[in-house]
């Protein structure tokens, strides 16, 4: 969930009233936000870097507000205020309009076909006669940052560039060039760099280094030029210094380059709807024209208003209340969805503004009606759904066996399903290739290299962590291991195993053997060759030679028991003899 940081007093000023922290927290809760933290710049710096560094930092109170991941329209102060004011019916939602420039010729952004190799989409718009203040400017930069982190998926899908239009002249060209052919002075640097030099320069930049991978290994890098060959930006990495915006900027050219054009349009709409508020003609955005290779042109921003018709009956049934069409239309209007009742059949026409790109289905409208009504004002009902409960047979058997194994004096362990290769192979005197283990591609540490193929390693690690406990230690676990299996759609399956260990001054083979006998008794399997169970000497490198047997039941091999090999005992850092039982319980279903 993205967190937006706003100055409390500025927020209250914009909302036109003050709140106590509790009141504001309550308002957030109702609106689906969360007042996560109340802090200040000084607090933050002092927490991260110590009091000394924090000296002189601002102690203006900041509200950190968690915003739902799909509400891009609430990622800045402007959007939050608009959303809350409309919710509280203190203002009406503004109407965003695209206008043509006074001279009739929109700014042009021409996309060349080379971009197809790296970043094929672009959209653009102009904010004309905007007035920045320090707070507005900071919010403008911060919104781009939030969009980059969220809907833009760390700039992979969309990258935003904003430019002082008065320093550049269109038409602009969005192209892609071999890195060495790109050279410009990047934002806040004093000299020109070639693209490869830049990539090198930013390798150590705490912020920008995270975006380098997006284009690093591409043959060409995206770049935007103005008509005089000035570089506006090299998306998604950095803008040029030449066109950078400042507090004095009056006209802003916004370009969004993208690999996902739907997201690019949303991002552009968000930036312009939020900040057109500060234009001379508020909430108007100047159109720009994007020319695709082979001549297709599009005008942006789209600022789409979409109309959906939904009946009050549908909403009443989905939510579980009984409201009139008028009342529902009012609820929806409070959620920034201008709605009116049309016709006699309880139909409501809902207008979805460009800021609500999260509304993609009628169910999203239903939710907003319920939110505006207040989830906690709804009557809690119990559905009449009549069903008969069933246990999953494998879990039922597991539950029954667990109880009786504890009654047999063994204590239940709960070990991890993920472990290192070493745990299931080398430490058990096995070769990893013999294990049928499923391997994890991206483990952060060795603890998560494979899914376990046996419960034994986890039990032995549990013993090792409890060597101070009085002997004997008698542990068991009934849980799943994972084995590769080509017959399954995903190429692997779980297998429910019962594993137990006995750790004492003497190996206690008879104890673990007795546990097998008891388990078979519980499963109502009698000793015997044909239909019953029996054990038979076996060779297994995990066990001490001559002290291992294979367990057979109903004619099939279900596992092993025996005294562990001294090498295994050593590798798990144990000091006493140990015997173990490891069987599959699925054949007993």
């Amino acid at each position, binding site marked *: *969930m993205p967190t937006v940081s706003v100055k409390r007093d500025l927020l209250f000023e914009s909302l036109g009233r003050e709140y106590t922290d509790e009141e504001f927290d309550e308002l957030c809760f109702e609106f*689906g936000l*969360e007042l996560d933290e109340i802090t200040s710049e000084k607090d933050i710096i002092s927490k991260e870097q110590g009091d000394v560094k924090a000296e002189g930092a601002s102690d203006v109170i900041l509200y950190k507000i968690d915003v*739902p*991941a799909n*509400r891009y329209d609430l990622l800045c102060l402007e959007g939050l205020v608009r959303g809350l004011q409309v919710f509280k019916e203190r203002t009406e939602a503004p109407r965003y309009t695209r206008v043509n420039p006074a001279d009739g010729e929109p700014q042009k952004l021409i996309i060349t076909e080379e971009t197809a190799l790296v970043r094929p989409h672009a959209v653009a718009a102009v904010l004309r006669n905007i007035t920045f203040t320090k707070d507005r400017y900071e919010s403008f930069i911060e919104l781009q940052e939030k969009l980059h982190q969220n809907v833009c998926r760390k700039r*992979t899908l969309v990258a935003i560039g904003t430019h002082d239009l008065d320093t550049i002249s269109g038409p602009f060209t969005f192209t892609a060039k071999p890195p060495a052919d790109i050279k410009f002075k990047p934002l806040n640097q004093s000299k020109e760099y070639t693209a490869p030099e830049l990539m090198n320069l930013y390798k150590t930049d705490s912020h920008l280094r995270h975006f380098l991978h997006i284009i690093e290994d591409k043959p060409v890098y995206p770049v935007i030029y103005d008509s005089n060959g000035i570089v506006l930006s090299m998306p998604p990495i950095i803008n040029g210094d030449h066109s950078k915006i400042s507090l004095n900027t009056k006209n802003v050219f916004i370009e969004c380059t993208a690999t*996902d054009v*739907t997201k690019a349009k949303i991002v552009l709409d968000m930036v312009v709807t939020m900040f057109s508020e500060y234009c001379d003609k508020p909430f108007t955005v100047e159109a720009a024209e994007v020319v695709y290779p082979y001549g297709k042109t599009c005008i942006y921003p789209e600022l789409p208003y979409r109309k959906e018709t939904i009946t009050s009956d549908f909403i009443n*049934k989905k*939510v*579980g*209340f009984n409201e009139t069409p008028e009342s529902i239309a009012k609820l929806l209007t409070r959620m920034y969805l201008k709605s009116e009742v049309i016709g006699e059949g309880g139909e409501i026409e809902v207008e979805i503004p460009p800021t609500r790109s*999260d509304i*993609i*289905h009628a*169910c999203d409208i*239903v*939710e907003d009606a*319920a*939110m505006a009504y207040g*989830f*906690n004002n*709804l009557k*809690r*009902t119990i*559905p009449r*759904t*009549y*069903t008969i*409960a069933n*246990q*999953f047979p*494998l879990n039922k058997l597991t539950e029954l066996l667990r*109880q009786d194994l504890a009654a047999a*004096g*063994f*204590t*239940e362990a*709960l070990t*991890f*399903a*993920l472990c290192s290769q070493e745990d299931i192979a080398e430490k058990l005197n096995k070769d990893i290739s013999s294990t049928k283990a*499923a391997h*994890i591609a*991206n*483990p952060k540490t060795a603890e*998560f290299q494979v899914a376990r193929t046996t419960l034994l390693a986890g*039990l032995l*690690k*549990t013993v090792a*962590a*409890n060597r101070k406990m009085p002997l004997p230690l008698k542990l068991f676990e009934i849980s799943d291991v994972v084995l590769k299996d080509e017959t399954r*759609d*995903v*190429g*692997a*399956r*779980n297998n*429910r195993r019962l594993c137990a260990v006995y750790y004492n001054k003497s190996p206690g083979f008879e104890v673990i053997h007795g546990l097998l006998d008891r388990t078979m008794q519980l499963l109502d399997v009698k000793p015997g060759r044909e239909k019953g169970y029996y054990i038979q000497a076996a060779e297994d490198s995990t066990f001490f030679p001559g002290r291992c047997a294979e367990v057979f039941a109903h004619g099939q091999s279900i596992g092993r028991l025996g005294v562990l090999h001294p090498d295994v005992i050593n590798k798990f850092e144990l000091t006493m003899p140990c015997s173990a039982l490891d069987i599959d319980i699925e054949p007993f279903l």
Partner: protein
Amino acid sequence: MADSGAAESLLQRLDQADGGVDSQQVAASLGVDHQLVVGAVKSLQALGEVICAELRSSKHWEVTEEGKEIVEKGSHEARVFSCIPAEGMAQSQLMTLPSGKVGFSKAMSNKWIKLDKTAEGGPRIYKSVDSIEDTVKDRLQLVQRGQAGSLEEKEKNELKKRKLLSEVTVKSYWITKGCSFSTTVTKQETELTPEMLASGAWRDKKFKPYNFDALGIIPDCGHLHPLMKVRTQFRQIFLEMGFTEMPTNNFIESSFWNFDALFQPQQHPARDQHDTFFLSDPAIATEFPLDYLERVKRVHSEGGYGSQGYKYDWKIEEAQKNILRTHTTAVSARMLYRLAQQEEFTPVKYFSIDRVFRNETLDATHLAEFHQVEGVVADYGLTLGDLMGVLHQFFIKLGITKLRFKPAFNPYTEPSMEVFSYHEGLKKWVEVGNSGVFRPEMLLPMGLPEGVSVIAWGLSLERPTMIKYGINNIRELVGHKVNLQMVYDSPVCRLDS
């Protein structure tokens, strides 16, 4: 027994006594040390109700060593008086006598003697009365005879000031007969034996009393793991509510069932390497219900079923990628798909409690794997109010009665609600779970009828368990680093109390 002789003598005294005896007096009359009698009292008490003994403390006066000398030889002043001849004695000579100094001043103040300072050869002392009464000696004698009571307080205090008397506190027992009093002490048996039962000898035996303050011996037994005990209770609650258990024994899942089927777009951050464990072997899933897969592809990339869709280039390669499931909802998706394939829809209630995996940063409350508890209800006409009502009932069974719901976002549910409960200890609302109504973009491509709603909720098993058993670090609960003593000592799990 310390000294059975003393105990027996004590019992005999008590037998003859009228009412009771004082241990000090018994000691005095037996001519033994008081401590010996005290020992006898204690050992008789241990036998049960033979005697009753009440601890008393009393103060009494005792003659000091110096006092005893006076009783024997008379007071210093009397001794001075008696050694002065009729012709008197030089003061200097008198002062050399053992009782000289003290005796002189006391005899002077008693006016028994007089001093002639002008006598020849230095000051000289003469008797001034013919005879004296040595009251100091008399009084001390009374005290020694145990008749201190006949003296006045003032008199006793004066003697105390002269360090001839001292007041001592004496602890003693007032001993009376117990309900099973007997003058003979029988040896006590520690336990019943088969022989006693056979012979009936137990009837005549005395048994040593048990110490009920001591702890018993913990039985030699096995123990269930606390998290699994909580799992059993959650299972029980779902079964009580009529929910059927889903087969969640498939840790490895394709991205298709884990994400795509749930209408979670392919660029969603949860599908990132940083959040999800991908598999290198087996790397991809190969079998899918193809017509369903096509419908999923379409709803993502183009929309449909009343949805705008996400309008992006959906790739089967992404859907094929195998992962360790990030939620059990992947299984719910498989179950709902299976339900949709039935000839006729029947309402269902499903639940599961099983492991899920996240490639997250680990800390005191987060592990790479945890247990997810999930409930799902599918039926025609379910409402948001129904979801809240079912959750309310579910949480009551967990002992949580105060619930409220916060709007939230989740890619596959709409509406989505975070569930908060009021924590009496922390005095604030804390998140206890997540819930919602599955999106039509998830259900309709499966083939479920249009009017069917599916409500669902989920929570972790570890969090309520940590709260229940007061565990702060999740590693003390789950995994091999668990402290077995904690497992041994953990109580049964009753979630509603």
